[in-house]
């Protein structure tokens, strides 16, 4: 394997940015502290000054900074999103990660030399859609939706002339991203518009005897008893009654781990690997990035993948292959 996979790492805070860069990340991705990015959680993200410092820190160490501006701008008030693109360009970001067509068009017209990546939130999952973003909006890279098998990714890469980036570790959306209104059905906040899925202000943990009931808005998403750990309640990881059974209908509370699949992903032609987790602390980021750094380097050197122990930090201690394996569907 000659081409080394690029490792794109989460930075929810300046501390995580430094941890990711120090652990060997090739690039970090982050967002401004507002509704312009899809991880708009309290205590996370970057001011303009923090971005400037972060870019300096990363560039001095040979790492790139990608700014996610990947919510859908609000009709009648495009300014915050336009300013986010302008500021990312002005501060020297290496790329912006965009989902909205209108915003990508704005970036292409006003900042033609600023690299544009297509966010997973754009849900571009086939060659015709990707060619549109490539040819019409000048996108250099597409973050692939988490709905594709590795075989589908390989065929896709063979059909397009654009870099692809795939998620390899962390929280797993099981729905086509950017097209999911499960959270906004249960709460007044929208992931697409405000960048918040399952906002903490609408989550409740209610003790009921020995059990803990987790609720999002008015809806019970799970009831756990005894030793079972109550995962953070997102609609797609809830337990429901359906067809006469009680089950995790959409997905078990588990984290994606594609560490063992890196050789296949490289062979499928992907350019970059993305680690999810801007809401995670710097220790988590450092540990995961270091493990993937070792694996990517081993792969590039033609050496066997090192055995990495990441199960302890996955959600519920459980790992899933996500959509990468056909059987998951």
């Amino acid at each position, binding site marked *: 394997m000659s081409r080394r996979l690029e490792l794109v790492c989460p930075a929810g805070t300046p501390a995580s940015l430094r941890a990711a860069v120090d652990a060997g990340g090739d690039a970090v991705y982050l967002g401004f502290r507002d509704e312009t990015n899809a991880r708009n959680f309290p205590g996370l993200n970057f001011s303009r000054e923090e971005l400037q410092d972060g870019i300096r820190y990363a560039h001095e160490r040979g790492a790139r900074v990608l700014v996610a501006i990947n919510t859908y*701008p609000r*009709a*009648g008030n495009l300014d915050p999103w336009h300013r986010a693109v302008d500021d990312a360009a002005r501060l020297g970001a290496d790329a912006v990660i965009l989902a909205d067509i209108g915003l990508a068009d704005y970036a292409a017209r006003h900042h033609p030399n600023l690299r544009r990546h297509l966010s997973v939130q754009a849900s571009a999952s086939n060659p*015709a*859609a990707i060619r549109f973003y490539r040819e019409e909006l000048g996108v250099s890279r597409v973050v692939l939706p988490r*709905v594709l098998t590795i075989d589908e990714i390989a065929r896709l890469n063979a059909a397009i002339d654009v870099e692809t980036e795939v998620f390899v570790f962390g929280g797993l959306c099981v729905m086509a991203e950017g097209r999911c*209104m499960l959270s906004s*059905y249960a709460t007044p906040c929208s992931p697409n518009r405000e960048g918040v899925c399952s906002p903490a202000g609408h989550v409740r943990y209610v003790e009921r005897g020995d059990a803990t009931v987790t609720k999002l808005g008015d809806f019970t998403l799970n009831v756990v008893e005894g030793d079972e750990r109550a995962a953070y309640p997102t609609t797609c990881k809830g337990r*429901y009654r*359906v067809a006469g059974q009680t089950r995790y209908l959409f997905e078990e509370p588990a984290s994606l781990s594609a560490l063992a699949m890196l050789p296949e992903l490289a062979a499928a032609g992907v350019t970059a690997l993305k680690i999810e987790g801007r809401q995670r602390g710097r220790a988590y980021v450092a540990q995961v990035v270091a493990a993937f750094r070792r694996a990517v380097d081993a792969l590039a050197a033609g050496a066997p993948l090192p055995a990495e122990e990441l199960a302890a930090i996955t959600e519920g201690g459980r790992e899933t292959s996500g959509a990468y394996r056909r059987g998951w569907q």
Partner: protein
Amino acid sequence: MGDGRAVKLSLGPVLFAWPAEAWRDFYFRIADEACVDTVHLGEVVCLKRAGLHAPMMEAVRERLARAGKEVVLSSLALIMNEAELDAVRALAGRDDALIEANDMAACALLAGRPHAIGPYVNVYNEGTLAYLAGRGAVRACLPFELPAASLRALAAASPIELEVQVFGRVPLALSARCYAARARGRAKDDCRLVCREDGDGLAVDTLDGNAFLAINGTQTLSSTCANLVAEVGELTAMGIRRLRLSPHAVDMAGVAEVFRAVADGRLDGAEADARLTPLAGGMPFANGFFHGAEGAAFIDGE
């Protein structure tokens, strides 16, 4: 602006895997009895189902055309493999009907000639709307979760005809995974179209026994039925030109008559609600998205 009589009614595509005869008879009845201007046909959710209705398609189209209905062909909403893309290519290659694009693949393939944008394409703001209009979109059905303020801003800036779903369960998510199969312990590759058993959607209840969602194969819908009949006046005043009714196995001709009467000023909101309740087959109503609340909410606008 504000003239309800200029508003048109569209019947969205049947989202469910109804048995072929039931599907055909539903559309025949729409052709014969429903006061809708436009009828959408086509499989939006899962390519595996397309064969179910294909043998009936020409008869249905012909009956609708004879009844004076505009027929729009709706495309698949999630395209992940060559077979799905081929289906969209074939659809985009037709020149005998307006095509509604529900994915950017279809938008890309339809560029340069008149087409419609479906609600699964993210048109959240005037920038995207203008861009797509510039490439040939002549009509757009807006995303389900947009609040009134966004609809108003889009309508004020829109160079093209805008549409909003006002009746029917709301599509909330799409996945590669088939939950109708999974709920029965089956793999998607071995689904045997078990979704045919699910009528208007397979009920998903919370562990407290409250209705929450409805599964339609790879699609997840609200368990509530959107009902914006009380908001029709507001929608038309802001410049929304089309109201979409999403089909269920209920008296959709009756539903259409209620919305038509409200749009024409022959029926007020409260009376319309009273008439819609028995027509909705027991589905509770919601209008939260429109009012900027959680989608499941019902806000009494009176």
